[in-house]
């Protein structure tokens, strides 16, 4: 429970930042410092219970119970240590931030810092691997923003840091998924205790490498080490917190956390020790080379993290005790040094060692704090760093493997420490002693500014002689990671031992190195490697982006053909592979061929051959129409009367609408080279054969489907309807149908919108009919007399019939779709019979009809709530006065909506595409543009400025009228 409160307090701090920032500006840091230090106090108060008595507080709350993920928290010794560091160091840095920044509001900074503290605490307390991963990524994201927030030059470093650490995050995610799948739980403690690690070395090795990769990127291990100096673009409090004490320690935490599973794995030991020691030495050498104090501190962090990784890699009790206490020591001296860098930068307005020197007299407190921290870092007695580093040497001597491994590892660590001693000296001496350089007008910083570094620095001094108080911590840390209690026996002096001589060697050779290199001056700024990290990263990054662009170029084309051909080819290839591999299929079920089918095959072939061969647009349209009628006939033969009727009417309307469009286009298709025709014909033939074979072998080889049978058996009982297809549409699948209805309506509105923004092409009407002036057919009025006379009678009949079809749809052939289409066909007839487009215009507000249809369908859906859920039809039988009964259902209202929407869309198509000519903005106005036989005087209200017939209610852009 106390763990949950910890996290909740931090979450509350995050949420409270805007308020605190508004009220206090940069002083909000005091508030957060208070919160974090209070939490650190709580953590310290837990010490007797966790460290001495070996209790492990835990907490679990279901989060995603379906997949077994819980908000599980657990605090063992390792978790205790890291929580203390995050809250304690975080508190010091928050206090420091109030002086570091100029007065003013710092919302982004405090929000992200508190969010980071929250994420980091969650990370080290999580006892669920999914939760652990989420917090892990949250630290990456907050780090990205905190670096990027720091100034104009910080965006690339932020991106580079983010990509590298996110890459490690992906490795962790992979490990998490694999572990959960294998072990079957997301509880971290259960996963680590699982016997799988010793039983399946291959699996253990895979996970070990993934976890190590995640930790290496996060903790800046070679060859990913360069991101940490790169991230120094961030402001100093961010660097001190994220890049010294907390975030980079997440990798260390992860390695310690997984030590129980992997400590006996040779590949784990080898990878950690090798990479860690390489990083330790390389980082230390680079650190000595820096002029910039902050970069020096950053490389020093890299080096120290390398030592920690290496000693964790040993996997023995003594080594993990050393890792535990050195983590604490490093957090103290490194955060102090980073904060001092900020102080120096602030007071002397530079942090370049070439411009600094002799500041001790003017900044005595800063000099003292720096000296304490640097001595601890250098491993000089009696500071804490001395004890912990000596323990690292001792731990490395126990490195597993052949005899030579331990001594070599320890020697490498000593080598790194030689450089550590030298750069620690360079840091402190170069700044505060040595020759005074640069500005002389430098003053000591205020107490608020120095409090943070001072506390951290003095803690290192106090804990040196008092190091036995850390025994419990070290023992618990070792017990958590190795499983056995082992007396830590930490003390400043424990006789003449090997590790004491190693410490002395590090100090002695370090002093010599300082002498040889003039405290690093002679080495500084020299290029040791031909390339540096950021350059390599940018090279790889650009290469990757370029590769992606080149792959994308394959499909980046304006030609629809190139897009359309891809799926066809892929599907055909898949069919070819399937045919080659051979698939076992059951026998045909029942007779599939009737004698009547054959004429339809012939008809379809004729239609297709005609459509393919012709160069005339109109002929092609007619041939495709024939194919459509063939399809309708097929549907009749298959017993789908509703569908066949729909297909028939749709085909009529498609031909009518297409004919309206074709008037505006050239009579013949574009010419294509013969090679293209042959190639497309070959592709088409392959696709056709695949489709035919696929249909033949993969369909119709079983009895009626289960759902189909269910609908046949139950539709009357469930819905009262006997037309099963219709009941599926309006009762069982009404929500689907509603969605389709909306798509239909939207397409109608899109047509209006498209024509509103770009006008139709002019029609080539005069070209189509060539008749003599004397012929009765010449005059449009005379010519259409019979059609008009018939349509006057027919239209009402058609409308009545369409309504009848709609109403009876539930029990017999019919339905809203068919009804609407039939009514639309009636309007098409009137339209075709009219002598001119303006007379033909059906003056109905068709967008409103579409809208009304959708609204009616929706409202019938809402009625369904009366009986439980959306679009659930209500139905009841009503006795008719003349006997019998009529089945009343809200599905009928739904059908009415369908009917209206379909009619609206058909009317839209006829009216919009039937215009003689149009310009942008004209299309919805119901007005004709002036043409020879339509003088502008016929058009009512032209130019009056309001548009009473504008069916969308939109006023078109001015200027066109």
């Amino acid at each position: 429970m106390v763990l949950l409160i910890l996290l909740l307090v931090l979450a509350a701090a995050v949420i409270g930042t805007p308020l605190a920032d508004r009220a206090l500006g940069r002083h909000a840091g005091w508030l957060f410092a208070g919160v974090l230090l209070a939490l650190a106090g709580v953590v310290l108060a837990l010490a007797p219970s966790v460290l001495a008595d070996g209790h492990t507080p835990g907490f679990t709350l279901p989060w995603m119970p379906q997949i077994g993920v819980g908000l599980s928290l657990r605090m063992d010794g390792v978790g205790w240590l890291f929580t203390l560091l995050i809250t304690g160091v975080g508190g010091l840095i928050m206090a420091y931030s109030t002086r570091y920044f100029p007065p003013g509001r710092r919302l982004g900074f405090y929000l992200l810092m508190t969010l980071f503290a929250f994420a980091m605490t969650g990370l080290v307390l999580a006892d669920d691997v999914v939760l652990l991963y989420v917090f892990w990524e949250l630290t990456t994201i907050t780090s990205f923003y905190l670096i990027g927030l720091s100034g104009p030059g910080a965006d690339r470093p932020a991106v580079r840091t983010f990509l590298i650490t996110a890459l490690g995050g992906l490795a962790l995610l992979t490990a998490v998924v694999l572990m959960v799948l294998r072990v079957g739980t997301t509880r971290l403690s259960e996963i680590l205790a699982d016997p799988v690690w010793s039983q399946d070395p291959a699996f253990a090795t895979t996970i070990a490498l993934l976890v190590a990769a995640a930790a290496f990127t996060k903790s800046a291990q070679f060859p990913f080490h360069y991101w940490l100096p790169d991230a120094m673009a961030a402001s100093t409090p961010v660097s001190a917190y994220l890049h010294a004490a907390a975030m980079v320690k997440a990798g260390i935490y992860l390695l310690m956390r997984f030590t129980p599973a992997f400590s006996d794995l040779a590949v784990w030991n080898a990878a950690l020790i090798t990479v860690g020691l390489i990083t330790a030495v390389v980082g230390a050498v680079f650190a000595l080379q820096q002029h910039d104090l902050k970069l020096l501190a950053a490389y020093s962090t890299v080096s120290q993290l390398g030592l920690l990784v290496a000693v964790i890699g040993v996997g023995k009790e003594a080594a993990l005790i050393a890792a535990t206490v050195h983590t604490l020591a490093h957090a103290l001296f490194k955060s102090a040094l980073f904060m001092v860098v900020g102080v120096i930068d602030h007071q002397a307005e530079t942090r370049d060692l070439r411009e600094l020197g002799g500041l001790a007299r003017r900044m005595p407190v800063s000099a003292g704090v720096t000296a304490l921290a640097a001595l601890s870092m250098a491993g000089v007695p009696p500071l804490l760093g001395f004890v912990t580093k000596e323990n690292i040497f001792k731990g490395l001597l126990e490195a597993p493997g052949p005899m030579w491994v331990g001594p070599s590892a320890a020697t490498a660590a000593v080598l790194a420490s030689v450089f550590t001693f030298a750069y620690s000296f360079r840091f402190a001496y170069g700044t505060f002693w040595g020759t005074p350089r640069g500005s002389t007008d430098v003053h000591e910083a205020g107490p608020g500014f120095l409090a943070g570094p001072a506390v951290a620095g003095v803690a290192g001094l106090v804990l040196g002689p008092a190091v036995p108080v850390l025994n419990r911590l070290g023992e618990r840390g070792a017990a958590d990671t190795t499983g056995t209690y082992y007396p830590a026996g930490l003390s400043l002096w424990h006789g003449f031992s090997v590790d004491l001589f190693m410490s002395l060697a590090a100090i002695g050779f370090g002093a010599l190195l300082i002498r040889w290199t003039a405290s690093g001056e002679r080495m500084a700024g020299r290029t040791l490697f031909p390339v540096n990290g950021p350059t390599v990263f940018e090279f790889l990054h650009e290469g990757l982006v370029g590769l992606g662009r080149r792959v994308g170029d394959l499909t980046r084309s304006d030609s629809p053909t190139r897009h359309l051909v891809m799926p066809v080819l892929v599907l055909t290839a898949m069919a070819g592979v399937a045919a080659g591999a051979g698939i076992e299929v059951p026998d045909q079920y029942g007779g599939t061929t009737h004698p009547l089918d054959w004429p339809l095959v012939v008809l379809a072939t004729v239609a297709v051959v005609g459509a393919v061969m012709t160069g005339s647009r109109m002929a092609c349209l007619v041939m495709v129409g024939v194919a459509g009628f063939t399809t309708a006939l097929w549907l009749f033969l298959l017993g789908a009367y509703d569908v066949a009727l729909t297909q028939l009417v749709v085909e009529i309307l498609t031909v009518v609408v297409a004919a309206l469009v074709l008037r505006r286009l050239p009579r013949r298709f574009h010419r294509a080279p013969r090679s293209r025709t042959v190639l497309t014909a070959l592709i088409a033939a392959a696709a056709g054969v695949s489709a035919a074979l696929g249909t033949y072998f993969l369909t119709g080889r079983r009895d009626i489907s289960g759902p189909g049978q269910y609908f046949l058996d139950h539709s009357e009982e469930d819905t009262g309807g006997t037309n099963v297809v219709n009941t599926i549409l309006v009762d069982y699948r009404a929500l689907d149908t509603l969605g389709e209805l909306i798509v239909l309506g939207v397409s109608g509105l899109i047509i209006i919108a498209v024509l509103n923004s770009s006008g139709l092409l002019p029609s080539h009407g005069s070209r189509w009919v060539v008749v003599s002036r004397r012929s009765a057919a010449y005059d449009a009025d005379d010519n259409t007399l019979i059609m008009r006379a018939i349509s006057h009678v027919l239209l009402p009949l058609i409308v009545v019939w369409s309504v009848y079809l709609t109403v009876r749809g539930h029990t017999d052939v019919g339905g809203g779709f068919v009804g609407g289409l039939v009514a639309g066909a009636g309007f098409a007839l009137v339209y075709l019979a009219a002598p001119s487009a303006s007379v033909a215009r059906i003056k109905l507000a068709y967008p409103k009809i579409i809208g009304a249809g959708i609204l009616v369908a929706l409202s019938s859906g809402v009625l369904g709530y009366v009986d439980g859920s959306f679009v659930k039809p209500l139905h009841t039988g009503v006795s008719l006065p003349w006997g019998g009964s009529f089945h009343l259902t809200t599905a009928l209202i739904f059908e009415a909506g369908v009917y209206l929407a379909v009619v609206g869309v058909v009317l839209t198509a006829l009216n919009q595409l039937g215009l003689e000519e149009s310009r942008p903005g004209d299309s919805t106005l119901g007005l004709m543009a002036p043409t020879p036989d339509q003088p502008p005087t016929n058009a009512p209200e032209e130019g009056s400025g309001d548009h009473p017939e504008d069916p969308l209610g939109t006023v078109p852009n001015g200027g066109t009228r």
Partner: protein
Amino acid sequence: MTLALTIGVLVFGAVFLMLQRGLVRIILGFVMLGHAVNLMLMSAGGVFRRAQPLIGYNPADVVSDPLPQAFVLTAIVIAFSITVYMLTLAATGSDDDTEDLS
């Protein structure tokens, strides 16, 4: 087998038209592909039972599967609206040419 043949022939015509230059032929190919796909959906229901699924009209063991029919019915209407929309696009701009640059 006859249905499979019809589908094969229609797919041939559809793919051929869709790969030509000019939006109108692409649209007509699309319409034809719609026919082929709808028939394919119908064939999934099995073509050995060919009576219409009206309860009371036909014996239950010969009526066809109603589920593909319901799918196809809405598919036809949606395809119609999309066809009309594409025809609108073909009739705007300067031409229905899809390969101006080639």
